[in-house]
Each structure stands twice: as C-alpha cells, then as structure tokens.
C-alpha cells in the first residue's frame, strides 16, 4: 500500500509540473532587458517603491520631465549583499526620499534604467551596478562619502 501511495504522489507531482511548464504565459520582456551603453541618462525623482532582491534590487522613482509631466521609472541595481558591501544598507533609503540616478536606458524603450551611480538622500554617491555585469565601472566599486 505504501509504495502505491508514493507512486501516486510522484505521478501527481509530475503532472502538476508538466501543466505549469506548458501553461499560457504572456510575453513578458521587461526586467532583465539589456541596457544601451550609448544612452546615458540622469534621473531625479522621489522613491515610490523599493525592492531589495537577489539577483537584482529595484527601486522606482516618480520623475518630472522638463515639461512638468510626471512618470514612474524603474532602476535596476545590485543584490542586497553587494550593495551592503559598498556601504548602501537597507535603511538608507525609504519611500518619499529623493534620489539622483545616473544610468543607462533599457534597449527595449521601457521606463527602466540600469543604475550605475546613485546619489543617496544623505549626499553619498554609491556605485549601483550589479557585480560582474560588465557595465561601465564594473569592478571598481567605490563609494564616495
């Protein structure tokens, strides 16, 4: 009896796996899109959302353009461990803070930048790239007080 039950569990598990693997997905392109090294940009905005995460952390800013129109931008940066080693700890930013982000635009035209250099509310600038991503200044992680 015991081996029959285990067999059923395994078969059921495999079926579920198969269903998941084959079920409908939307063509989701945004997050890990490649960034264009020829399109540097500076964003100044207030934080609306913070996601500390492996493999990449993200924070979202409400940015006003030259005409005064506001839009929300996503900024991709390194994982919590890497940022922490550069002196950027979790409590250093909160929703509503103003950040200056120097980075590069996503190739697919979405409102996403790869944050290379971030100026924190306390005035410090921190290197924001993901370690080993090959982007500008990768490997020379420095934080200026």
């Amino acid at each position: 009896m015991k081996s029959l039950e285990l067999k059923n569990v395994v078969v059921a598990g495999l079926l579920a796996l198969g269903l998941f693997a084959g079920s409908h997905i939307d063509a989701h392109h945004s997050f890990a899109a490649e960034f264009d090294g020829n399109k540097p940009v500076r964003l100044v905005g207030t934080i609306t959302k913070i996601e500390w995460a492996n493999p990449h952390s993200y924070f979202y800013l409400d940015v006003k353009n030259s005409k005064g129109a506001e839009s929300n931008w996503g900024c991709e940066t390194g994982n919590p461990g890497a940022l922490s080693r550069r002196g950027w700890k979790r409590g250093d930013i909160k929703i509503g803070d103003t950040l200056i982000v120097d980075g590069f635009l996503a190739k697919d035209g979405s409102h996403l930048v790869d944050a290379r250099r971030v100026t924190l509310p306390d005035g410090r600038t921190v290197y924001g790239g993901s370690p080993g991503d090959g982007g500008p200044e990768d490997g020379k992680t420095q934080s200026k007080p």
Partner: protein
Amino acid sequence: MTLFLHICQWLAGTAVGTGIRESDNLFSVIETVHVLGIIFTAGTIAIVDLRILGLLLNRYSVEEILRPLVKITWLGFSVMASTGILLFWSEADKLYFNLSFRVKLTLLLTAGINQWIFQRTHKREMAVWGAVVVPLWRAKLAAALSLGLWLGIIVLGRAIAYQ
C-alpha cells in the same frame, strides 16, 4: 491558468520566499550549491550515458560503473531539487514569466520520463552489458537523448538570468 500565477505570487510573498530573496548572502550560497551540484547529477549521468554509448571506460561493465554512481546521482539530485525549489520560491512571481525556466522544467520532466522508460525496458539486460554484450541501439538512443536533455537543462538554467 492564472491559478498557477496566484500560487507563484503567494509563494514569493511568504516569509521564506521573501527572506531568501532579500538576503545578503543566503541566496548566493543556495545558488552556488545548486550550480556546483551539477557535477554530482549531470556529471555522473553523463559518464554513465557515455559508457552506454561505448565512448569511455569500455573495459568496465556498465553495472560496475552504475552501481557506485547511482547513489551519488540520487543524492546530487535531491540537493539540486531542494536548492532549486528554494531559488524558485524566492522569485516564483518572476519565474512564472520566464520562458527559459519553463522549458528547463519541461526538459527535466522529459529526462525523468526517458530515465523511467529506460529502466523498465532494459533493467534485466543492463546486468550483462559489458565487453561481450553491447547495449542495443534503443538503449544507446536513450543514452544520447539523456545527454542532450541534460545539456539543454544546464544551458537553459543559465539562460534564466538573461531574460
């Protein structure tokens, strides 16, 4: 099938999922164990497959090679599955949309089915595969398929990060 999406979103939001995702070093450790575990899973499977194909260790019977490796493969697979589940748990909501991940799971499933069919079909003959009795073409086909599937699984595992 938005049920799966909701399950994935729920998983990612749990304390375990969030804890791993927001960790300083835990995620990297789990990922490293997962990647190096390839040696004990795909590595051992590849060696047995290559033997069945007659490409190496031909002076030894298949049984001689399989017996000590089987335990390692299963141990390796448990570690891969556990670390894999934890990694999935931490970013289930994003992996839901990841095509490489979906295909990787499909290949894993296929590899499992291939292995199961192989065991059932060749269980008795395997004991005598050696210098004199050579595996049938059907068995070699299964071994070649196994190699191809595991190659795909590894490649797609790496491709997950590039989406």
